[in-house]
């Protein structure tokens, strides 16, 4: 009872007889403990209060009403009850509450309704969110599916990508920005961007500038890109609702996708998720396209190689005849037409070099790989390089210490280095610096994955760098293609790098060009490290050029091309040998069964059943001590396995000079 704000009122006297402390607190200083005039405390407009008090006095049940405080017009809830006194008179007991009870209940109710409403809204939103989430996943999946179906080998796959994204995001402008030929370009564009960027323009932004931002700086990254887009022509385009997402290729940012959206309202919450999925998919697509392009390039080079090998084979036989006969001419006719004959020989030698390079490119050059110390080889080859370059070019050889050994064909390696040096020289007509450098390197799995035909592992690297005019990306891409040259007719055949390429590949290595127009070029060759520890690595015997005394011996010569057979027979006879010449392996076997020969010289490819390799085997059974020398303008798998000759087989490439064959024969017969 005492807890309540309570007044005892004498309605007749219009006086508040008593007030509880709570009532004093509630009403304030206008209320005194005893005998406060009712009018000091309450308003009585229209006798509302009077009627209420009279009502309360007239019945034993309580009445409820609102009363208004006089000083501050606050409304209180009042419950009036009759208080009967012993003398028959009555007073009114008034219980007050700060807030009319009804409104407090309504307020609670309203709060509850508001809570429920909020809960309902929240649930509806959550449900909507979930639907949106599913929708955006659906959309992403559909986009990824469409992207996966694109043919990345077609040149316009990025255009189709942009179209797919554009329609899925209902974008009025989508652009794919990525690096091409060394510069960031708008590679594909739809909608408003299609009109602004029709010809894959560059953005004046390098990939490194572009990727040099951390995750936290994503906004600045976007700003930079957008400002360059605007600078490049899109200055009237609003990027306010643009979705800008990086395109990662193999974990590194390689470009971006910009997608202009009509509004950023719908599905905004899931755009992040969606764009992550989609940019990942586009990145994957770009990676696939890159690999496929590389593969196509490799296949193209391979096909040209096949063709080249075939042509070279026939060409070699022709050359062999020309060369052989020219030499015979030179030998037999001392006086007349020597110059003509010499010219024929020069031409034939040039032709022979040409076919040799073609064969290298075709990876059909017979290789004799030996464990090689590159530093030592370069040291010994140094004078040759210096002779090749001009005085205005300085040569620097940087040999790294502790260099691993690699198994290579030394002659071909020298050829390759020479080709690169010549290219460097040609690239620096007004002088510069030529650097040849060696190092141990590892090509890791990631590198191997990104390059076709590369196996991860340890390699010995040899790099040839120049400070010349460099190559444009277009030239660098085609540089390995045979007969591709930017040089004037007669100055370049376009086979130098083809030879390097073929040779390195045949040696199970890898070659790569780094070049920037106007700055210079570096060509790096990688050869697999030789792990079979071979302690005595020498650089091969120095070629002796002493004049040869007349030779002695009986040679069985097998050659199907009668032209070649004829000139070879004569050449060998001129050297002092006795020669029996036949055109098939069968005839040779017949002869071998009947008599003894000091040496068998046979072509590899022979008509009919047996080839040179088989003939060599039979000959070994019939006469184990007799040396066999095989010759060919073209090497078949029968004698070359993985770039190496079968063990025990001696081989000489056609065409050869008389001096070359003489040397080989002499060496074999001396055993």
């Amino acid at each position, binding site marked *: 009872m005492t807890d309540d704000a309570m007044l005892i009122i004498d309605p007749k006297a219009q006086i508040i007889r008593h007030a509880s402390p709570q009532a004093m607190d509630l009403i304030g200083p206008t209320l005194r403990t005893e005998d406060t005039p009712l009018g000091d405390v309450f308003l009585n407009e229209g006798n509302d209060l009077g009627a209420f008090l009279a009502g309360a006095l007239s019945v034993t049940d309580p*009445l409820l009403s609102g009363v208004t405080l006089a000083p501050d017009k606050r409304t209180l809830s009042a419950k009036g009850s009759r208080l009967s006194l012993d003398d028959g008179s009555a007073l009114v007991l008034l219980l007050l509450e700060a807030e009319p009870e009804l409104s407090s209940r309504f307020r609670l*109710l309203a709060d509850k309704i508001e809570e429920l409403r909020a809960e309902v809204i929240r649930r509806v939103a959550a449900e909507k969110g979930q639907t949106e989430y599913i929708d955006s996943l659906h959309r992403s999946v559909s986009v990824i599916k469409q992207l996966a179906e694109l043919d990345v080998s077609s040149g316009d796959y990025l255009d189709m990508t942009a179209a797919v994204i554009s329609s899925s995001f209902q974008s009025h402008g989508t652009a794919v920005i990525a690096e091409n030929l060394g510069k960031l370009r708008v590679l594909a564009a739809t909608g408003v961007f299609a009109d602004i960027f029709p010809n894959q323009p560059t953005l004046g932004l390098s990939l490194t500038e572009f990727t040099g931002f951390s995750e936290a700086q994503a906004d600045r990254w976007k700003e930079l890109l957008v400002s360059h887009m605007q600078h490049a022509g899109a200055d009237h385009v609003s990027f306010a609702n643009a979705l800008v997402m990086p395109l990662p290729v193999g974990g590194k940012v390689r470009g971006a996708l910009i997608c202009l959206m009509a509004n950023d309202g719908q599905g905004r919450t899931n755009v992040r998720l969606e764009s992550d999925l989609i940019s990942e998919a586009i990145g994957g697509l770009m990676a696939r396209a890159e690999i496929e392009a590389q593969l196509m390039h490799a296949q193209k080079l391979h096909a040209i190689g096949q063709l080249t090998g075939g042509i070279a084979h026939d060409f070699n036989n022709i050359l062999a005849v020309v060369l052989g006969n020219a030499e015979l001419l030179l030998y037999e006719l001392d006086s007349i037409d020597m110059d003509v004959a010499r010219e024929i020989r020069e031409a034939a030698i040039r032709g022979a070099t040409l076919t040799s390079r073609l064969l290298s490119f075709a990876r059909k050059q017979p290789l004799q790989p030996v464990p090689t110390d590159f530093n030592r080889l370069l040291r010994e080859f140094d004078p040759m390089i210096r002779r090749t370059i001009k005085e205005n070019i300085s040569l620097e050889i940087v040999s790294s210490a502790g260099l691993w050994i690699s198994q290579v064909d030394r002659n071909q390696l020298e050829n390759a280095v020479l080709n690169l040096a010549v290219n460097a020289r040609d690239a620096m007509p007004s002088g510069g610096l030529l650097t040849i450098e060696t190092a141990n390197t590892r090509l890791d799995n990631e590198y191997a994955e990104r390059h076709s035909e590369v196996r991860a592992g340890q390699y010995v690297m040899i790099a040839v760098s120049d400070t010349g005019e460099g190559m444009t990306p277009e030239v660098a891409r085609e540089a390995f293609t045979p007969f591709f040259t930017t040089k004037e007719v007669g100055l370049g055949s376009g086979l130098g790098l083809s030879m390097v390429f073929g040779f390195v590949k045949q040696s199970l290595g890898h070659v790569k060009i780094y070049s920037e127009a106007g700055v210079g070029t570096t060509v790096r060759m990688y050869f697999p490290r030789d792990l079979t520890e071979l302690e005595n690595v020498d650089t091969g015997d120095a070629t002796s050029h002493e004049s040869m005394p007349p030779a002695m011996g009986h040679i069985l010569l097998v050659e199907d091309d009668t032209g070649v057979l004829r000139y070879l027979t004569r050449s060998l006879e001129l050297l002092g040998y006795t020669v029996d010449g036949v055109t098939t392996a069968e005839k040779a076997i017949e002869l071998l069964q009947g008599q003894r020969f000091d040496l068998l010289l046979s072509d590899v490819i022979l008509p009919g059943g047996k080839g040179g390799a088989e003939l060599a085997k039979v000959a070994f059974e019939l006469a184990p001590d007799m040396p066999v020398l095989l010759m060919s303008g073209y090497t078949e798998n029968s004698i070359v396995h993985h770039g190496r000759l079968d063990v025990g087989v001696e081989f000489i490439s056609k065409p050869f000079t008389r001096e070359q064959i003489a040397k080989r024969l002499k060496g074999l017969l001396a055993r």
Partner: protein
Amino acid sequence: MTDALPQPLRTPAIQKDYFLRSILRELVGMLEQTVGEREAEAYVNHVGISMGRILNEDYRTAFGSDKLDARQVAATLVDLKARIDGGFSITEIDSDKIVLENTACPFGDKVVGRPSLCRMTANVFGHITAENLGYARVRIDKAIARGDPGCRVVIALSKADETSGPGESEFFVGTI
């Protein structure tokens, strides 16, 4: 334009009275649910007393007297109820009490489940009786609102020997 409006096949029996009773029923229902039955009664008490005050003045004027006697009071109560479709009839009347009974409520079937509306009747009856006869003690024995088939209202005219029992309300002359 009104020609075009459709006419229902049977016009619903909605009269002004029916309409107002429905409103009342809904309002009281809302009040009972909001503040509880007991507090709702306290509000209805207040309304009932006020109504009683008005009606008392009207009947005094109608009878042309300052103060009604017992028979006039009884007549007033019956007439009042008849006028508002109360259907009350006096089953007992003496110097001690007036007993009224009915089979239909002034609030019609709208009263069922709205017991606080009974306070209206109790207060109007009690107030008019007390104002004219000096005192009244009202007890509602049966109520349609509580599910009984009819109502029975007992108005005692003298004070009880002991204090009023449960369900009884005492009325006094309320003029200050």
